[in-house]
């Protein structure tokens, strides 16, 4: 049996330690491996496909919503009557002179818009009564016919994380006007349904697609109260129908 000299053993061990330390340092300092992916060609969404029936889309994939948008675009906007309300996207509206003969409508006095919009009355819009996460984003547009409040349009911002709202948040428009007139929101029949809010018949349009906290297309709601002669419309720009119904319940009191 041949004995190995002690200095040789120490040298071998030292070299092994140096090699291991170099490996560890190199492995630790280098970044994580990237996910392998194709790198050639820029991809646009496909505007020809429509959703396969009874499939749940994978919302992590780019443009997963496009088939639903394509399908919606192929459908004609509904024109007709729902829940006693006329829906007509082609209606052009009436002028302020037609609505308020003689003088026409006039804006509320400067700096008085908010106090007029929130004052008790059939057209009142009260930000304090809105669902949590909804705050005004603008001074309301308020129009009077003589001394009488006639029309309010008020926009709001909706925070991310609000229930029934897109994970990125949403805009919101509340519009109230005296009198009954056609609803001009364009949406195919498949997205409309009838409902009731605080005893008032309403029509509601769902978003084009809503999966979890991804809503594309927004919700719309309209209701006419014959007792007060006020038409109310609610637009949740990136929200589903549950959100529009919740806002309507707070506004149409």
């Amino acid at each position, binding site marked *: 049996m041949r004995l190995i000299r002690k200095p040789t053993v120490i*040298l071998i061990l030292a*070299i*092994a330690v*140096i*090699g*291991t330390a*170099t*490996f560890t340092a190199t*492995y630790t300092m280098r970044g*994580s*491996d*990237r*996910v*392998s*992916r194709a*790198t050639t060609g*820029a*991809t*646009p*969404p496909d505007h020809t496909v429509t959703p396969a029936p009874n499939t749940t889309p994978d*919302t*992590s994939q*780019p*443009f997963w919503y496009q088939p639903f948008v394509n399908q919606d675009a192929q459908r004609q*906007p509904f024109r007709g009557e729902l829940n006693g309300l006329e829906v007509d*996207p082609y209606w*052009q*509206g*009436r*002028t*302020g002179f037609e609505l308020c003969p003689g003088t*026409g*409508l006039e*804006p509320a006095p400067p*700096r008085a818009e908010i106090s007029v919009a929130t004052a008790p009355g059939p057209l009142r819009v009260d930000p304090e009564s809105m669902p949590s996460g909804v705050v005004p*984003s*603008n*001074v*309301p*547009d308020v129009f009077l016919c003589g001394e009488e409040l006639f029309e309010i*349009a008020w*926009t709001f911002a909706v925070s991310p994380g609000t229930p029934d709202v*897109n*994970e*990125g*948040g949403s*805009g919101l428009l509340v*519009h109230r*006007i005296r009198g009954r*007139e056609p609803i*001009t*929101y364009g949406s195919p029949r498949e997205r409309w349904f009838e409902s009731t809010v605080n005893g008032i018949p309403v029509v509601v349009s769902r978003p084009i*697609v809503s999966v979890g906290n*991804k*809503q*594309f297309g*927004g919700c719309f709601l309209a209701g006419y109260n014959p007792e007060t002669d006020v038409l109310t419309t609610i*637009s949740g*720009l*990136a929200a589903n129908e549950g959100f529009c119904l919740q806002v309507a319940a707070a506004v149409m009191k």
Partner: protein
Amino acid sequence: MRVTIARAIGIAVLMGAIAGLAVPKESKAVNYSVYIELWPGGSSDLTCGWHSGICYDDDSQVSSGAALDWAASATISFYVKSSTDSGLFSVSGTGYLTSQTQTSCSHTMYASVYDNTATWRAGVWYYHTDDSLSSYNQDINTQQYNLVSTSKAISTTANESGCGSSWTGYHVHQMSDCGWTLANYPDHSTCNKDYPEPFTNDVSDCWVSNSYHMGYANWSVPYP
């Protein structure tokens, strides 16, 4: 002997480094970024700086806010520019344009900006716009490291007669909704033109720099 030891140490360092680079490591998700600018929907003639509500000729009556008035005698457009740091996509997301109200004094259109996974990123209101379509989805063009434009005509200016004497001149009241970082354009107190002429009671320093974009948004999205 010394030369042999030095070589052995060198080989050990080299082998360790090669092994450290070669051994597979756990993959980590990475994101790519998107940048988008919001541009005027009307002409580039600014008639009222940042304000909210009506831009009265008497500037002391005007409230500050997130809207700009652009003169617009004809078409109003959804106009944005986008770039990305990825070569994977020529489209950064989707603009979804809808008519909101078409009545008397409230002719209003809205454009939502979604990223390519349908997360809502920003929105913009176009007031005094007559409806020429019910809804429309628009690809937002983009290019790696280069800003490219997307412009979609959405409507024309509305005739809102009978809505008060303060409504003068065809224009679009373009109000940015959440999601945008607004540009430092003139406030209403430095730009308030009673457009068109004769420009009485003007505060007309409406210089808006050599680029007219109102603001920008950016986001990152995981690679698919």
